[in-house]
Every structure is written in C-alpha cells, then in structure tokens.
C-alpha cells in the first residue's frame, strides 16, 4: 500500500542546533503512526514542518505523490494535512463554528455562508461525537472542550492525514478514553493519523507503528505489535530507565513553614495543605486539575476567593495576601511558563538572577554593580549554568539552563519555601538530573519545597509526600513509600486505570 503522506529527509536547524535531523516518516491510509520522544526530541517541529507552518532547511513533504511547497500552511491544508496543535490555536473571541472553519469557511464571492459553515462545523462535531453550542465563544469553553473543538477543526478539513500533538495532555482519563476510541473510528474509515505523545500506554493502545525520535534524530521505526513499552522507552531515553533508589533522601521535616487553609480560587475548590521545613511536597494530577491554580492562589500570584495562607520563618508567622508579600516573607516561585513568566529573555543572566534580589544588592536605591556581579556569578555556578557567563542574554541559553537561571534567582533569596511548577518541562535529561539535585539540596538545607509535576517519575523521585489533585480538590495523599505511578494515576483520574 502506498504512503498517503511522506516526509523525506527533513532537516531543520535553529541557530546551528539541529532540531530535526534527517528524519523520514510515512503513513498509509488508515494507519495510526505514533511519534514518540522526550521533550525537545523534535516531534513538534517535525509536525509543524509537515503542516507547512515551519520551513524545513532540506527535505520534502509529499502527499499522494505531490511535493508540497515549503512553509505554506494553506497548501498543506489543501493537500490534506491537518494538525491539531499542542498549544491551543483557537481564537478566543470567535465562535465555535468559526473556529472550526478558521481560514476555510465556505463562501460565495467572499461572503461567509453562515448556515453552511454551521452545518460543516456541526458535521465535524458529530463526527467526533461532541455536542457544543456552535455560537458560543471559545473564551467561554472549558479546556477539554477547546481541545475537542480543535480536533473538530482538523476533522472538518476532511484531511487525508490527521496529526495530533499531545492531544490528551489536558484531558481526564474518561475523555482520553473517548478520544482514543474516536481516533480509532476515524482510522477505520481510512483516515491516516499521526499521534504524538509520550504517554506510552496510549501509543500501545491506539497505534500501529511507532517512530522514535531522540535529539532530533530518528532512532527507529517499530511495529507496535512487535515491540514492548520498555523497548520504546529505552530507545526514547537512550539508556535503561530504572528507579534511582539510591537518590532517595532521608527527610526529617522540621516545623510547618507554609500553612494554607481553605483555599478557594478559580479552579480550586477548598484545599488546605501544609509544607514543613526540609520537606518536599509533590502535587500530582492531570493537566488542568487545578494544581497550578492552587499554588498560584497560595502564593498570591493569582487572586483567591477565600482562604488564609501563612508562612512561618524563624518563629515569625506572616500572612500572605499578595505575591509581593509572599516574596517578602520568603517564598520563591518557579513558574510553569518559563519563557514568558520566569525569565526576561532579552536581559542578561545577571539581570535575571538578581531581579528578585535588588533591594539586597543596592544601597539607598543605587545598584551595587560589583556585588551584583559576584552574586550572580556565585549563583550561576551553584546551579551549574553552562557556560556560566552572566552577561549573556538569558534567551541564548537552552531550556535546561534557562530553568537553572530561574531557580538561581530564587536561591539567592534563601527562600523558606520554594514552589516549583513543572520544573523540568522541556529540559534535557542532563539538566533534569541537575535540577533534581538542586531541589533535593534545597530541602536538605531546610527549605520547604512544593513541587507541581506531571512527570510521574519526577514526582516519585522528589516528593516525600504527594497530594493528588483532581477537579480542584485533593483526592488523595500518598507518602513516599506508598506512592507509585499506578496509585497516583488512579487518584488523579478518579478511577482505576489499567496499566498498559
């Protein structure tokens, strides 16, 4: 059987680094191809090239024998390639129907045929079995619903191949379950599907073939029926993955540092928790469960409706009402969105590191230039920034190094509590280990740590205690001994999940 879509020898470099290095994939009609790899392996870039959003440096995309022009989103769509984005690419103020037919609404002499547009949108929604008011604005929809609207859009284009980039990241298990069976139905009807995920069980449940990428290179193409999850994981990581039991810390928590009582906020429904000095508390759960919202409400980064948060440092208890007061009291926060919330990318490493420490590094408002430099220099070395050049722009560093800069800027404050939200997302393996080491070191030195992570192994490795959050409430608390992936997932999902 001939390939419907074929990508031949695709190479793409950003600033000298090859994000995709001579990768070729092809998918036949009705085939479900999985593309797996760690964060930063080049999956998304490859898919964006397929969809004509990114321009490849070399290589071709061929649909049914025709070469698609480079970097032409419209041509790719017309040729039958439809991409469901990882980051939702909907227009918040437009309606569901308009978003489904964004850029491809039916027209007569340029005028949108609203009724037909709604019919097509309705048909697409029915095809994926989702019911939603077509005239509702996207900004009013839940995250899961937006994800399905996004899929409906891709389906509405009657694609030959449907590419989904981490579609289940923000879905509950029931929704995920539904999505997978729906994709199976589409494939049965002859649609080709490229499924990007690093959730191996999903891959094994859904896909026929799996392509493994690592560091932009294509490692192998395997027949799912003839392989095992462990094999795939090993190839993804490039080493044998085993639980690093040696790295476990012996924790001896001190006094209660953070006490949050009855937190209610957008997406958070009455949560209380405590973190002690020297203790690492993990917050597990699915994306969208309310973990980020919870920590942001606790530290005052987002407004909370109700609840009281106190921080006890050196025997003094302070009420946290705003983010400023939290920082003043001794809170450090490593936000989820590193590039937009964590760093000022066009500022230097030194400037970023010293941003929260300005008062300490100045005399009556004037910056102490030398003190700033030694301060930044020490910290950048302490977190293992490579190379530790504090006058470079933060944006010139890789993801892992950037995250180290974010951590460094809080280390400088010697925080009593540090809150880390997805500390290693998009970070390479080496940097990940270093960041883990840093976090543990912090706890060993008596800092209270609260860490949010969707990366289960990470959570299991770091946390002394894991609170699992679902729908804005804590559904279970597991100690380090009790915790394993299965238990966390079942609490996160609110049901038993079979282990693939």
């Amino acid at each position: 059987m001939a390939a419907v879509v074929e990508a031949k020898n695709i190479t793409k470099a950003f600033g000298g680094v090859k994000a995709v290095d001579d990768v070729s994939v092809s998918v036949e009609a009705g085939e479900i191809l999985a593309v797996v790899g760690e964060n930063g392996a080049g999956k998304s870039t490859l898919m964006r090239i397929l969809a004509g959003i990114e321009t490849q440096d070399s290589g071709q995309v061929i649909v049914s024998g025709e070469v698609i022009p480079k970097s032409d989103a419209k041509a790719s769509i017309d040729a039958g390639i439809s991409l469901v984005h990882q980051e939702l690419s909907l227009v918040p103020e437009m309606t569901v129907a308009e978003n489904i037919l964004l850029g491809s609404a039916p027209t007569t002499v340029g005028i949108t045929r609203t009724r037909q547009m709604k019919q097509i949108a309705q048909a697409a929604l029915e095809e994926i079995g989702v019911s939603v008011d077509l005239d509702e604005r996207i900004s009013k929809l839940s995250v899961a619903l937006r994800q399905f609207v996004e899929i409906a859009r891709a389906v509405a284009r009657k694609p030959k191949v449907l590419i989904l980039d981490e579609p289940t990241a923000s879905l509950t298990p029931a929704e995920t379950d539904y999505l997978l069976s729906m994709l199976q139905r589409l494939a049965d009807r002859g649609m080709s599907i490229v499924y990007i995920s690093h959730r191996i069980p999903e891959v094994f449940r859904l896909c026929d073939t799996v392509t493994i990428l690592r560091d932009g290179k294509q490692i192998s193409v395997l027949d799912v029926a003839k392989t095992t999850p462990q094999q795939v994981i090993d190839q993804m990581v490039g080493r044998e993955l085993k639980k690093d039991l040696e790295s476990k810390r012996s924790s001896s928590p001190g006094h209660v540092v953070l006490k949050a009582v009855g937190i209610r906020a957008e997406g958070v429904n009455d949560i209380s928790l405590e973190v002690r000095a020297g203790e690492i508390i993990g917050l597990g759960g699915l994306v969208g469960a309310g973990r980020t919202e919870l920590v942001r409400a606790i530290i005052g980064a987002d407004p909370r409706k109700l609840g009281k948060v106190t921080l006890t440092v050196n025997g003094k208890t302070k009420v946290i009402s705003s983010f400023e007061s939290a920082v003043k009291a001794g809170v450090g926060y490593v936000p989820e969105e590193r590039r937009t919330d964590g760093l000022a990318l066009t500022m230097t490493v030194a400037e970023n590191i010293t941003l929260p420490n300005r008062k300490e590094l100045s005399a009556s408002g004037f910056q102490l230039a030398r003190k700033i430099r030694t301060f930044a220099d020490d910290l950048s070395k302490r977190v293992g920034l490579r190379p530790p050049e504090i006058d470079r722009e933060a944006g010139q560093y890789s993801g892992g190094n950037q995250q180290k800069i974010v951590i460094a800027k809080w280390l400088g404050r010697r925080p009593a509590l540090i809150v880390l939200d997805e500390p290693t997302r998009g970070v390479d393996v080496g940097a990940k280990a270093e960041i883990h080491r840093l976090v543990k070191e912090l706890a060993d030195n008596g800092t209270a740590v609260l860490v949010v992570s969707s990366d289960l192994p990470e959570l299991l490795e770091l946390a002394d205690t894991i609170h699992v959050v679902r729908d804005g409430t804590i559904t279970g608390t597991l100690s380090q001994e009790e915790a394993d992936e299965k238990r966390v997932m079942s609490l996160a999902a609110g049901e038993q999940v079979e282990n693939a």
Partner: protein
Amino acid sequence: MTETIQLGGAKETGFFPRLRTIIGRRTEGRGVILLLVILAVLAFTQPLVFTALPVTIGRIALIGIVALGLTAVILMGELDLSVASTLAASGVVVAIIPDLRIAIPAALLMGIVVGIINAFFIAIVGIASFIASLGMLFALSGLAFVLSNEVPVSIANQDAGLAFGQPLFGPVTPRILLFFLVFIAIQLFVTKVKAGREFFAVGGNRQAAYDSGIPVKRRIFTGFIISGFVSALAGVIYTLELTVATPTAGSTVLLASFAAAIIGGNYLKGGRGSIIGTLIGASSLGVLQVALFLSGVQVPVQNTLIGAILLIAVITDPSSLRAISARVRATLPDRTKVEAQ
C-alpha cells in the same frame, strides 16, 4: 464505549437564558450604557438634540466615519495614527485638481495608496504599526501643506460642493448617506465576509491565524487599505462640504476617532470589538458634543468632560476592573473565619 461525549456548554434554551447568552457575547456594553445615560439626561435638559435629529446624526457621521475605518485596523490589534493626516492630504488633493471627476477618484486612490504604504511598513518591513503610522502622520500632514501651498484651497466647482451639502432625500445629506454606507459595508465585511471575519482571528490569535492558512499579511493590507480609504473618503466629504480644503483639516479627528472606538468597547490589543460598538461610541460622543454645544458650555469644559468620560471608559474595561479588584482583594483582610480551625 460511548458514542458521544457531553462536555458541557450545550446550547441554552428558553428565552431569557438565551438572551443572557447573546448579551454576554457582546462587547458594546459600556458604550450602550454611556449612550443611554447621555440620552436620558438630554431628554430632560436638551430636547433639541432630538428635534434636530438630522443634525445630530450629521454630527455623529462627522465624528464616526474615520472611526469606522480605524476600527477595522484596531480589530487586528494594530493602530493607524495617520488617519487624520490622510484626511487632510486627500482633502487637498480634491481641491487642487480642478475636475472633480478626476479629483475624487484621485483622492480616494491616495487613501488606498496610504493604506498600502502603511501596511507595507508593518507587514513586509516589520515595523510596529504605531510607529509606521506615526511616520505617515508627519509625512502626510507635511504633504497636505506642501500640496496646498500652506493656504486653504477652494474647489473649482463651488456649486457641486454646495449641492453636496444638501439633503438628498428627507434629512439625509450625502455625508450621512456615505457614513451609513461605510458603516454597513464595514459591518458586513467584518461579520459576513470571510476575509473580514478573519480580522478577529488576526487580532485575537495571530499564530492560530497563520497556522490555519489565513493570509495574515494580506489581511493587514486589507485593514489598512480600508482605514486609508475611509479616511480619504472623509477628506473628500470634508472638502466638498466646505468647498475648501484646508491643510489643517481634521485636527480633532484622530483623538475623537480613537475615543469613539474605545468607548464602543473595541479592545486595542485586537480580536475583541465591533463596528456597531464604534457606531455607538461615535453616537455617544456626537450626541454629547451637540448637547454641550447647545448648552453653550465652554470648549475647555467640554474637553475636560470628554476626557473624563474617556478615562472612565478605559478604566472600566472588564480587564481593568479585574486587575483592580484583584489588587483590592489582596489588600483586604482574609475572610477565612469559616474555614479556619
């Protein structure tokens, strides 16, 4: 295995829930409230505003026409500061060419060219619209002075100009007619025409627009051409009605147009707003100005009042209110007695 999945957000049924949904989707709220307040006050204090309705509408047309074109650009999250200068320069073009049959198309063409130049700098070169149109603001205002030799220029065909100021039918003068035509055209364009609807996508989520194959650059060109064309049309109207082109024309247009668009609920970052909103904003300002004029309120006082309304309009934007309420909440004592152990 389920065949369908219910994720909430189903269509509201029943009259009032649906009405609430529909109102909830509109962006013109503050403009409507302002207009209603003004009208209510005037009903008692200045009934003349209503008896002289055609004049009031004429006034609205004057303030609003440029604002309509500007809104097309604002919807995409861009700004066009050159509208007033375009108006002045195209007005001069109308006057310096003796034959109106050539002059008017030439002036309108000039508006289109201005739009293209603006869009070129913004979409192709990659300059922020704020700066590109600032450059054009100076350049075109200079051009208006240069072309007119710095003096008011009378149009050759005075009678045509005078006729232009007369009502066509009932109280409808060409200005009012053109204003409503422009309103209807842009309104239809951004609500019914695919390219126009896509303005919201360009303003609301530009990346998504690119990814969906929307030709974003072409849309930017379209938007600035609309803005340039409408400004030039306003210049033509101004010159014909006055029978004279002044290089200083439209000195109050830029600020008034922005005010109308903002009061009408258009979001300057793009993606949210409506042409109807601009109409409402222009109506509020127009009615207010007519009323203040009839009351003989001094211009400095009028300006102070308009400034105050604008300030209130901009700080009562929903996002502003959210920001400030979050701050206020942060400073209030915690209300946790119920939950606290």
